[in-house]
């Protein structure tokens, strides 16, 4: 193990010295974009998963370095040229004019094209998951996210109102305001957790891949379930918010909202995934192909 680690380390030194123009180019493109990401999207609730995805995504790639080295064959220059011909102008445009989604997407395409030139199509295809997964660092523009989450917000508040009503709480929803006892809650604030939909999907995806990666049919089913799970997690969040407001008052609810709400959403989403994974065990076994079941 130790010798393998040191082999990788010396590898890097000679790689950088031998291929310094490549590394220079990557640094020139990646560093400014990472700085913009850290200052903008990653500091918002809709983008907290960014750094985690970068770290885990790179880890997924690096742990397969031996396999990559074994199978690498330089790719076709034509494909690389096409990829770069699209990616480089898009990157310059996106970065200069503040379209960070375009900038990040173009950066990923650039890195993909360059990697293809070096390792070739076979390795790239075998790496489909980390590549797809890294796509989650492309920030979704606010107006797209708003359009998607708006109907979900109404749904979440409906469910919360109905459920708590069944348990005998005096709660009503007028438009987008929730009335609990003599408090008013804006659905907009209460449901802000829906902005974490993308983060939850990314984390769910990683979990599914790590634990059930070999069983791709089952992975797909779990993946489709990630979105309802994220919604369920948000229902829990809003319900907790309403209950805290009801029993402990507005000040306590605000404290919860700013300190713990995000964590509650996240943890409940993870627990939901574990739970569903557990419940679906029979299905998982039946979907596994014979050789997978054995391994």
């Amino acid at each position, binding site marked *: 193990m130790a010798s393998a680690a040191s082999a990788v380390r010396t590898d890097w030194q000679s790689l950088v010295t031998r291929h310094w123009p490549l590394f220079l180019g990557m640094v020139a493109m990646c560093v400014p974009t990472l700085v913009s990401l850290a200052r903008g999207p990653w500091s918002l609730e809709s983008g907290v998963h960014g750094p985690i995805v970068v770290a885990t995504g790179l880890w997924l790639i690096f742990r397969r370095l031996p396999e990559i080295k074994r199978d690498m064959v330089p790719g076709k220059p034509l494909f690389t040229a096409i990829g770069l011909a699209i990616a480089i102008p898009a990157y310059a445009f996106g970065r*200069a004019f503040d379209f960070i989604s375009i900038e990040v997407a173009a950066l990923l395409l650039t890195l993909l094209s360059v990697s293809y030139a070096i390792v070739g199509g076979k390795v790239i295809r075998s790496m489909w998951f980390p590549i797809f997964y890294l796509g989650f660092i492309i920030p979704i523009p606010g107006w797209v996210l708003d359009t998607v989450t708006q109907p979900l917000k109404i749904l979440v508040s409906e469910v919360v109102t109905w459920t708590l009503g069944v348990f005998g709480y005096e709660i009503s929803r007028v438009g987008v305001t929730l009335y609990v006892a003599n408090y008013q809650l804006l659905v907009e604030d209460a449901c802000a957790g829906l902005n974490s939909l993308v983060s939850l999907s990314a984390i769910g995806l990683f979990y599914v891949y790590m634990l059930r990666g070999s069983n791709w049919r089952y992975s797909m089913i779990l993946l489709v379930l990630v979105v309802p799970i994220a919604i369920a997690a948000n229902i829990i969040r809003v319900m907790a918010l309403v209950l805290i407001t009801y029993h402990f008052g507005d000040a306590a609810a605000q404290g919860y909202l700013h300190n713990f709400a995000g964590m509650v959403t996240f943890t409940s989403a993870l627990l939901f995934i574990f739970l569903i994974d557990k419940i679906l065990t029979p299905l998982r076994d039946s979907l596994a192909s014979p050789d997978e079941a054995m391994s």
Partner: protein
Amino acid sequence: MNRRDVLLGGSMVVAAGAAAALTPRKRLVLLGDRKLDAVIPKKIDDWNYVPSDAFVLPKSPGSLADRLYSQTLTRLYTSPTQPPIMLVIAYGAVQNDLLQLHRPETCYAAVGYTISSSRTSKVELAPAALLPVRELQAQSEMRVEQICYWTRIGDDLPTDGREQRRVKLQQQMRGYLSDGILVRISTVGDQSPVFVDALTNFAARMVQSMQPEDRMVLVGRPLAAAMKP
């Protein structure tokens, strides 16, 4: 080091360089050091400012509105002869992809109103100075509101979201970033001339009664210049 490395690395450096070269460096800030509160008259014709808090505004600490706007102003104006007017002004010093003015169509919809009518119109500020505005009717279960609003990005006055993004991009391609402002005037009432005209009238009178050198804050330099006799 081989030819391929140089080509690939070189094209990446070119991408980074081109991005840096194209990035707008100039700023167009029409508000300057002024405070919105100081430039908007407290008395407009026979409308007078009265303190109130009955507004549809998606704002809480740390919220989107909080990050979006560097200055906001909300005021209620009442008049003995005219409908009461709610004035909301939101100002953002920088407009970018993540932070940009939110148009009332979205904001009202987000708090449960439905927009039942939306059309563009012009408010005559002076014979040769027409201000492009959008007129909306917003309905909730409890009330109907008439809204008249406009947005300014730099010297441009876009009337819908697509135009807003387009003018922003045009300005960036010319090498500058601008500040942006949203001016929203609304009143509770149906779509009858009493209310609709009151809004238009208020809009025109508000800009006219500002100091001539402050008008560009709300309507941009070309229109402010066109208002001067």
